[in-house]
């Protein structure tokens, strides 16, 4: 059985909570040289040649799954995709049995999305392969957090001392938690803004500020990370209507202009235009939403490379044709 070699991250990437500032910076720095590979005509280097990776998605995903798959393929890994519909998962197989069966096929890495918080850690504790969390319940989505950090850094320089406000449904958001843990580790000031029904209990005790009104958040922040408001939140009664949500918490061009400040606006996608974010913001000069998507591939390449045992300072050489 192929055993994971030691990496600066350890065996797995389950979350950003507990990672040191140095570890996070290492991932972001390693992503830099990988950005260029996706600009080439031939978008492939042999860094992970011969490695087998399973993308195990128990929840539907387009963006994250495709981003991981591009990252894996551009590093020459052999990949298999398993999604919950049509797999043995829906036939009642337990997560632990799924894991053991994959393991028996001698795989090197698993990228998993699962609806239960803690599922990635559960898997990581039970199989020797590297496990990368592609989103577990409401807990973490560490590669999204990392690509957000990279995008902020690209546009605003060092994260330390920046003021970042996460706007929207923090309660149900794994993106929010990964952002909070990652930003705090790198020395940013972090706040959240949204209806109280969508903010976790005790959020202040995590070292996070709270703004009741989005206008106040915009006056304070350098960066807004706007979260998707899922339709079922309205059905669940967390907000009275999408219209009211947009009126009170929506990030609009008028509100941005009223601050007279040059805010950076991120959104993890997929967007509900006209709900949490207006089109003239999403498509306007503040938005770096498509940069996030581009950076997603580079960050995921960096994570795959590092977990496979690649040396951070050899990433530049690796992209020229070396193997990890």
């Amino acid at each position, binding site marked *: 059985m192929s055993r994971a070699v030691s990496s600066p991250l350890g065996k797995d990437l389950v979350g950003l909570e507990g990672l040191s500032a140095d570890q996070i910076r290492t991932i972001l720095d390693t992503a830099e040289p990988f950005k260029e590979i996706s600009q080439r005509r031939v978008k492939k280097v042999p860094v992970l040649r011969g490695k087998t990776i399973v993308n195990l998605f128990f929840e539907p995903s387009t963006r994250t799954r495709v981003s991981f798959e591009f990252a894996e393929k551009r590093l020459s890994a052999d990949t298999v995709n398993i999604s919950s519909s049509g797999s043995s998962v829906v036939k009642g197989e337990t997560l632990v049995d799924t894991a053991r069966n994959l393991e028996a096929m001698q795989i090197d890495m698993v990228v998993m999305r699962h609806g*239960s*918080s*803690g599922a990635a850690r*559960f898997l990581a504790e039970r199989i020797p392969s590297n496990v990368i969390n592609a989103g577990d319940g409401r807990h973490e989505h560490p590669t999204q957090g990392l690509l957000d950090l990279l995008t902020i850094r690209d546009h605003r320089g060092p994260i330390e001392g920046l003021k970042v406000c996460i706007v929207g449904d923090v309660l149900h958001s794994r993106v929010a938690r990964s952002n909070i843990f990652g930003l705090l580790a790198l020395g940013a000031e972090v706040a959240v803004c949204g209806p109280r029904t969508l903010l*976790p209990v*005790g959020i202040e005790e995590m070292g996070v500020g709270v703004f009741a009104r989005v206008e106040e958040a915009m006056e304070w922040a350098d960066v807004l990370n706007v979260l998707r408001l899922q339709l079922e939140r309205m059905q669940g009664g967390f907000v009275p209507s999408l219209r009211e949500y947009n009126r009170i918490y929506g990030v609009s061009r008028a509100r941005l202009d009223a601050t007279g400040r040059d805010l950076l606006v991120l959104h993890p996608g997929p967007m509900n235009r006209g709900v949490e974010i207006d089109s003239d913001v999403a498509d306007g000069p503040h938005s770096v939403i498509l940069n996030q998507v581009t950076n997603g591939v580079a960050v995921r390449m960096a994570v795959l490379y590092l977990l496979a045992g690649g040396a951070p300072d050899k990433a530049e050489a690796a992209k020229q044709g070396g193997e990890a």
Partner: protein
Amino acid sequence: MSAGSMLLKGGRVVDPSQSLDAVRDVLIVDGVVAALGTDLSAPEGARVVDVSGKVVTPGLIDVHVHLREPGQEHKETIATGARAAAAGGFTAVVAMPNTDPVIDSPALVAYVAAEGAKAGAARVYPTGAISLGLAGERLAPMGEMIEAGAVAITDDGHPVMDSGLMRLALEYARGFGVPIADHPEDLGLSAGGQMNEGVMSSRMGVRGKPNASEDVHIVRDLLVAEFTRGHIHLQHVSTRFGVEAIRQAKARGVHVTAEASPHHLLLTDEAVEGYRTEAKMNPPLRTEADRAAVMEGLRDGTLDVIATDHAPHHYDEKEQAFDDAPNGIVGLETAVGLILTHVVGKGVLDLPTMVERMSTQPARAFGLPGGTLADGAPGDVTVLDLDASWTVDPDAFESRSRNTPFGGWELTGRAVMTVVGGRVVYEG
């Protein structure tokens, strides 16, 4: 159960029902206590056991266990549960009715009682459901179930959400002198929750059950019990406000009894960190302030009894992502060691008060025989070795299940002999 005769010689007899804490011999003849004294001699053929240096108490009683039979015998059976109880020092347990099928008829009550008697270990007292099928709609045949042997009426695991039904249950039960036991949880406030709601659940991204979900229901039950003058027994109290509400209700004269579980006395929601399903239960482990309040409630008698809420689950069921794993832990074989080490050992309760909370009061609250070594009482005795050091090894449990957060804990003090009706049902 066949009656036995035996003489336990030279032990320190702790029987709070008689305010007794002294070295005595205990003579049991034909299954009942015949005498306490010094230099007693045994009748022909009776077993004589030297228990000098040990503590002899009226048999310990756990008023809250899940034995899973009928229907979930892969977790536990009445026989394995009764043996686990005996191994943990309990001479009697009260079995909850949330089995499959639900114990909501006299025939099923009689079945549990008969299987318990057949097991020949700890006594097994059945309970019957408040509502048919635990559906929370119509009363099950309470009187017939009590005639068949039910010692309490409860929908445990399914809180009675309809206050009108709770009123009827408390009023109707008054005619029979049995408690209505309720699992206090407002299902609207706790909906979807998998652990205590607080900073820990927010960090872990797990849906929480706020204290208020329990508090609201406790207060509701107390108010309904107060005006119906029924006997409400509140199960596994876990919140600081809940303890205080019960304290105030007792001061007003409400007929309420209440439980503290060993895990709510000793653990907080930090035990769940790392998504440890063996620390997942309902009500959930809460904060340090709650834990301390439950301990204080036990100390001052607001919480009358220690009950384990023994809830066996197969290891496959706990070996899942946190949200998917069932609630509950086993408790019968760890309770005595945990309480001796961490409650008596830390000076919160003295030994007689521990025996009161684990024997005298459980018998009194549920109207059970036992809880005393007075002449003519059942010959049910627990022998404790206060000095025995041991390590909790779930693989050694008599229970069919191993789901405990206390595996590996090093404890001091345990039951070394359990006697039911003058017959030794456990010796270790």
